[in-house]
Structure formats: C-alpha cells, structure tokens
C-alpha cells in the first residue's frame, strides 16, 4: 500500500514539475522533451490505475507519434531560443494570476463537492480483453466513425501541406 502511494507521489511530482518546465523553458525543443517526460509520468499513472492497455496506447500515440510530429515541425521551422518571442512582464504576471485564480476555483469546487459514495467492485476493467469487449460491443459505431475521422484528418493534412503553386491554381 505504501509502495503504490510512494509511486503515486513520485509520478505526480515528476508530472507536475516537467509540466511546469514545458511552460517555463525558453527553448521549444526543451518544451517538447519535458512534455514527453510528462506523458511518460501520466502513462505510469495509467498503469497504477490498472489501465494497462491505455498506458501502452498513450505511450505509442503521444510519446511515439504526436511528440515526434511536434519535434519534426519545430526542427523544420528551425525554432530556437533566439527566435523565441516573449510576452511582456505585465502580461506574464496577468497570465500567472489568472491561472492561479483558476486553480483556486477548481480546488474550491472540488473541496465543496459532495463525497461520492460508491462501493467499488473488484472488477478488472483495464486489460486488453475487457477493453476490447466494451469497445467492439457498446462502442462499435463510434469506433468506426473515429476511423473516418482519422482518414479525414489525414486528407486534410495532406491538402494543407500541398505545394503552394498547386494551391494557387486550384483557388
């Protein structure tokens, strides 16, 4: 029990710290690398919550695909510390105060909410087998629609990334 608690504290600490570093680091490439650390910590939380399938998918999709895409774009645009624009100190202060107020509101609403009284049943829900059963029985139609969504996104990305001369001729 204490081991899982310690693991929870450790993963939370890593996640929050590296999330802060995403915001505060000057170089966009460092932001991407810190965000990957955050995603790994969140994947650790998923394992801790018995969602092994989601942990694997999270690592593959986020750390493997999305962050590599971000890294590619940042390196392709050659963004670095020198080209990085910064807001004025006043704007930064205002942003920090606004975010702090949001945190206060969230914590206040969490503390003010009523305690949920549900007796947890000891049912395994996170394995590939159980996930597959739910996904392909109750959520079959959304699953198929999401495949169409991915196809549309792929076509859209290709259309947007097309050569400029062809785009001008078409429009």
């Amino acid at each position, binding site marked *: *029990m204490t081991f*899982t608690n310690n693991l929870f504290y450790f993963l*939370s600490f890593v996640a*929050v710290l590296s*999330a*802060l570093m*995403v*915001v505060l680091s000057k170089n*966009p490439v460092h*932001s*991407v690398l810190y*965000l990957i650390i*955050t*995603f790994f910590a*969140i994947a650790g*939380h*998923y394992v*801790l*919550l*018995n*969602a092994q399938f*989601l942990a694997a*998918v*999270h690592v593959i*999709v986020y750390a493997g695909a*999305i962050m590599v*895409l*971000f890294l590619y*774009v940042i390196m392709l*645009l050659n*963004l670095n510390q020198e080209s990085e*624009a*910064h*807001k004025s100190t006043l704007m*930064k202060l205002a*942003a920090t105060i606004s*975010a*702090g107020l949001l*945190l206060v509101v969230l914590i206040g609403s*969490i503390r003010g909410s009523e*305690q*949920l009284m*549900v007796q*947890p049943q*000891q049912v395994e*829900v*996170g394995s590939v087998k159980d*996930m597959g059963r739910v996904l392909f029985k*109750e*959520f079959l139609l*959304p*699953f198929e629609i999401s495949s169409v*969504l*991915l196809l549309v*996104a792929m076509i*859209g*990305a290709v259309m*947007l*990334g097309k050569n*400029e001369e062809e785009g001008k001729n078409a429009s």
Partner: protein
Amino acid sequence: MKTLQGIPLDYYLWLSAALFTIGVLGVLFRRNAIVIFMCIELMLNAVNLLLVAFSNYYSDASGQVFVFFIMAVAAAEVAVGLAILMLMYRNTKTTDINILNRLKW
C-alpha cells in the same frame, strides 16, 4: 473514496486540476503557437487522467473507452493543426501569435 489501489480519488482530482491549470498557464504565458498547442495537449491529458481515475473507481470500462476516443481525436487534431501552423509559417515566417492575430497576411 478510494480507488482500487488504495489511493484516494481526491488526489487524482487535485493532480488533474494542477496539470490542467499548468496547461491554461502555458496558453496564456507563451507567444509561440506551437508551445501553446503543446499546452492544449497537456490539458487534454489532465482530463484523460481524471477519466481513467473515475473509470477505475467505478469499475466501468466506458471511461477508458472515452479516453481512447479522445486520443484518436487528439491525433487528428495535431495532424491538421500542425499542417495549418506550417502553412502560416510559410506565409508569415513566424509562429508568434501576436503577428498571427489578424488571421490574414
């Protein structure tokens, strides 16, 4: 008020609130459009973590299926969003949102 692993559900609520707030802070704090995009991903992940925590607490797999769909939508969003950013960079030579605020060039 505990998940199956003995960690109180409140802790996950607070962790998700903290991560979400850091994402909002990043959106307000930075001027680089790509970093703002990454902070939006951070907010999505805070919500995902909370969905998985509640799914574990109720022993209901639906929450995890929602997270699965959110991941699919996030992947599509990132592909299209980064393509738009690339297109903007090609026209304006910058990803600074203060220059992109007119949405024209």
